[in-house]
């Protein structure tokens, strides 16, 4: 399978499920810890109230209407992680997770895909105005320091992390080959073996911490 080939459609909706599960737990955890964190900033990503739509429904909506490469969702996850590492005073919570999600997927699609929808389309999908979408995009890019490239090693490591999430959701089905995300994507990710193993090691050390 060539490095540019698309993943099978049966695999990718699972990624949505795993990503959703992970973000729900992170947001919930940060909601609970909010009173302990004095240095939290309010950012352009914060809504005044919690959106009514669940993270699951929101992600499915983005998946349905964004029509971007399934890989974009893994890359969006990488961006969210980088963003929160670079902006420790802006942890993901239920007030900002939706805006962060729509922005990260849009930026991933713009960077990764040659054909993608414009900001106006993503604004509609995300239920926000075009003006707000553009503000969010700029803030997200500068917040990331425009660090958008994702190496195969990093991509693989984040797939492994999502795979762990799958274990939490579906511990009994782990051997099911259609769920084995790391395996099914492994064929794509052998551009630079040294980098892959080095990145993976580094990533797993970080995740272990």
């Amino acid at each position, binding site marked *: 399978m*060539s*490095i*540019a*080939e*698309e*993943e099978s459609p049966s695999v990718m909706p699972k990624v949505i499920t795993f990503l959703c599960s992970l973000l729900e737990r992170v947001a919930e955890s940060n909601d609970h810890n909010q009173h302990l964190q004095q240095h939290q900033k309010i950012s352009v990503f914060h809504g005044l109230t919690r959106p009514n739509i669940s993270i699951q429904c929101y992600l499915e909506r983005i998946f349905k209407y964004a029509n*971007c*490469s*399934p*890989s*974009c969702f*893994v*890359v969006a996850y990488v961006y969210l992680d980088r963003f929160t590492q670079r902006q420790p005073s802006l942890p993901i919570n239920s007030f900002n997770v939706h805006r962060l999600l729509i922005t990260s997927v849009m*930026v991933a699609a*713009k*960077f*990764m*895909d*040659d*054909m*993608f929808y*414009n*900001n*106006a389309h993503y604004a509609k999908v995300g239920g926000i105005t*075009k*003006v707000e*979408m*553009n503000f969010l*995009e*700029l*803030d997200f*890019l*500068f*917040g990331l*320091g*425009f*660090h*958008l*490239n*994702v*190496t*195969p090693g990093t*991509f693989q490591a984040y797939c492994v992390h999502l795979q762990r999430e799958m274990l939490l959701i579906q511990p009994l089905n782990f051997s099911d080959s259609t769920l084995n995300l790391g395996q099914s*994507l492994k064929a*794509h*990710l052998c*551009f*630079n073996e040294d980098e892959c193993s080095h990145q993976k090691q580094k990533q797993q050390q970080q995740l272990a911490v």
Partner: protein
Amino acid sequence: MEKPGGGGVLSAKEAFEKLEKVGEGTYGKVYRAREKATGKIVALKKTRLHEDEEGVPPTTLREVSILRMLSRDPHVVRLMDVKQGQNKEGKTVLYLVFEYMDTDLKKFIRSFRQTGQTVPPQTIKSLMYQLCKGVAFCHGHGILHRDLKPHNLLMDPKTMMLKIADLGLARAFTVPIKKYTHEILTLWYRAPEVLLGATHYSMAVDIWSVGCIFAELVTKQALFPGDSELQQLLHIFRLLGTPNEDVWPGVSKLMNWHEYPQWNPQSLSTAVPSLDELGLDLLSQMLKYEPSKRISAKKAMEHAYFDDLDKRHL
């Protein structure tokens, strides 16, 4: 990178004095400017944001991101900073601050054409080696340039230093994605697989462009100056022969494949008569039809053509 609303940081207007406009692209103008604090001359690429619909242009997004990663290589133009500002109408603009380079390879070749001189063979060799080195660096980091042409190769005519620029069409090719567009790259430097509609392509598209640039440095004329996709293919076929399944397995399955006029391959020396034997051998390996058979940038650097080149300062 200056973050929006970054307090206490000078805006582009305050930090730079525009000296002259040196170019214009799809998304805005390029200025030669002076950094007020240091007196250093820089290139300022001003990017308009089409605020209502598109937001940050994908070319800008890719260029900044990719140059953040590649700018440390001496043969890739250095992106020094990105600043956010506002124009007279109060619209958001981004300023990309680059090191300033005096000229580009297109102007360099034109100057030789106008004076009727040939580019010295050792100069060609040095420039080609630097180009291969820069391309190898990009490819080694999983980046396809996809728009290599003389205009996008900046030069310092005093030191003969060459740098790859304009990575707006570049993209990462290391993660599985949807099909690539085949509407990339200026026609004259476009690889046959792209012209024939391949939707998945590789580093070999850049090597084809490098080969076309190599020939142009020698002859001071574009190797394949087509004015449409069809004419471009016919230019290629006339010199290299019409491809078939024997020389290029899978060619007839490509989206834009038709029955084309049949030409036999010519010797490359007919098109590039003043190039020596080793140069012709390297060029032929860069212009192989089958992408997987095309030489890599890294291998090209090891080619015997470059053996007599002093590489210490390159």
